[in-house]
């Protein structure tokens, strides 16, 4: 009975995972397909991986995407972390107002955020890399704040005060005492921002103007003409890199934690 139930649960989860990973499997297979058509299998090839590196357009879009992702994530992390520390020190009223504003880009539909930014940017500057970067920073900051805030809340303020009491200046105390404690939240915020930025299509689409292309907008533009197989190769490569990074990160961060739970419960 219990085994039957277990088998059922495993089957169900396997189906859900199959559903989530099926398209990825298709795309990976396509990246090795020796045919420009996406419906026929023309044999195994590594050709697209080779040609990828001579495709100026794709490489340019990749450069833009990475630049945008890293740049906006870094800027958002700095502004957002300082923001979170500052917001937390605010009085109830101010805190609530600022946090509501913070939630707007997350709750609002991407299309509305994108259009609002576009209408605003056309009054300020020509649409281009700068406007997309500003847009990405805008929607990334809330993710950083929301990652850092819980860490700040659980941070024991008395250790900051203890550091000050022992003669540390506020800057020293921040970098040596507070920062290490909220570091994991900041890191999570940075990666979240990076993910969001690299995955974004809608807001980029509305704010980019002509001439700038990220991988997403480039793919969108090619839907009707057909996607270049090099793009499948690039996506597979990116996916593989992230897969390895996350796997290593996971393995490192969780070492030695497995048994704590059991021991805790047995007492």
């Amino acid at each position, binding site marked *: 009975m219990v085994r039957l139930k277990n088998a059922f649960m495993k089957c169900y989860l396997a189906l859900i995972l199959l559903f989530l990973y099926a398209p990825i499997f298709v795309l990976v297979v396509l990246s090795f397909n020796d045919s420009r058509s996406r419906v026929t299998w023309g044999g195994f090839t590594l050709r697209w991986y080779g040609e990828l590196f001579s495709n100026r357009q794709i490489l340019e879009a990749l450069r833009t995407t990475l630049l945008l992702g890293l740049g906006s994530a870094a800027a958002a992390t700095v502004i957002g972390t300082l923001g979170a520390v500052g917001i937390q020190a605010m009085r109830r009223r101010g805190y609530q107002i600022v946090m509501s504003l913070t939630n707007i880009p997350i709750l609002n539909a991407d299309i509305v955020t994108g259009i609002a930014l576009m209408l605003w940017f056309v009054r300020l500057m020509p649409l281009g890399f700068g406007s997309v970067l500003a847009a990405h920073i805008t929607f990334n900051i809330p993710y950083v704040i929301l990652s850092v805030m819980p860490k700040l809340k659980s941070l024991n303020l008395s250790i900051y005060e203890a550091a000050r009491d022992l003669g540390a200046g506020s800057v020293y105390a921040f970098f040596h005492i507070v920062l290490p404690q909220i570091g994991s939240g900041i890191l999570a915020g940075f990666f979240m921002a990076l993910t969001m930025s690299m995955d974004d299509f809608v807001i980029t689409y509305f704010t980019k103007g002509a001439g700038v292309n990220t991988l997403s907008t480039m793919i969108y533009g090619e839907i009707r003409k057909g996607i270049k197989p090099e793009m499948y190769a690039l996506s597979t490569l990116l996916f593989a890199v992230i897969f390895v990074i996350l796997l290593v990160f996971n393995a490192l961060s969780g070492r030695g934690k497995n*048994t704590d739970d*059991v*021991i805790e419960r*047995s*007492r």
Partner: protein
Amino acid sequence: METNEKDILELRNITKSFDGKKVLDDLSLSIGRNEFITLLGPSGCGKSTTLRIIGGFVRPDAGSVFFEGKDITNLASEKRNVNTVFQKYSLFPHMNVEENIAFGLKLKKKSKAYIQDKIKYALKLVNLEGYEKRNTTALSGGQQQRIAIARAIVNEPEILLLDEPLGALDLKLRHDMQQELIRIKKEVGITFIYVTHDQEEALTMSDKIVVMNKGIIQQMGTSKSIYDEPQNAFVADFIGESNIIGGIMLQDRVVEILGVKIPCVDEGFAEREAVDVVIRPEDLEIKPEGEGFFTGQVTSVLFKGAYYEIKVYAEGYEWVSQSVSAPEVGARVGLYVAPDNIQIMHKPKSEDAEMIKE
């Protein structure tokens, strides 16, 4: 082993390991009806695991649990006529006080009127009348604990299990709650099995104390017998502060400590047997220099409210004494102990001896 008519619960040869680490080792224990029994020991001694086995949350690797003579080792916890008050209260956060208390009764499909009566009675019992509609998360720790007790009691269990229920409360509240628990126990008249690492709490409340260490019962008995006649150094050290010194039993009623022959009342030890000698601080009397068995120098005097705690360095050992009058630090004094205040124990066989070396 025969099941005693009077006993409500019996654990027989219980063994349990977690991750290859033995937590309970062949533990057997009988618990009488309407007893207030306390499992006492340091953290990791297996007392909570014992309680969880009785509650049905943990299955023993070997051994059996008998409830009124019936084997309930494999009975699911929801089917046992036993309820638990958890250390962290574990009130359901999505329910108010009333819904929390009614939880078990609703599952038993009791009538509305019956449930209402029971809630009223239980809240009165724990001195929280009128709290029916309160949100549990808004209550103080002490109030939450009272609700947790009420929630368990309304189900009319034969045994109430209490897993360090006062551990999270501050000292004053703790003392109040100890008295409350004793009163509640008297009113409902059921068996209480209480787990704590606080020896004072155990001594105050229990009819019977089971001192545990490393998964083994060290001693079982009334508060008085455990305090006055600890059977080994672990128990002596765990129950209250003591002077515990190695000695040699020269003959019946004479023990040699640090080279001094001292009369005592213990008999039946082997000749020249190495023993542990326990002298409670309140039994160690400070005398003028030259009187008593040892002479030494006062190293510290601390005022403790009702008495002074005096440390005296004599014969290479720092003695602790409690007295209502205080000598001066640095003064030379004599130390005396009456024969019937000396407790002689066999050396413990296990590695428990390690524990008393600090």
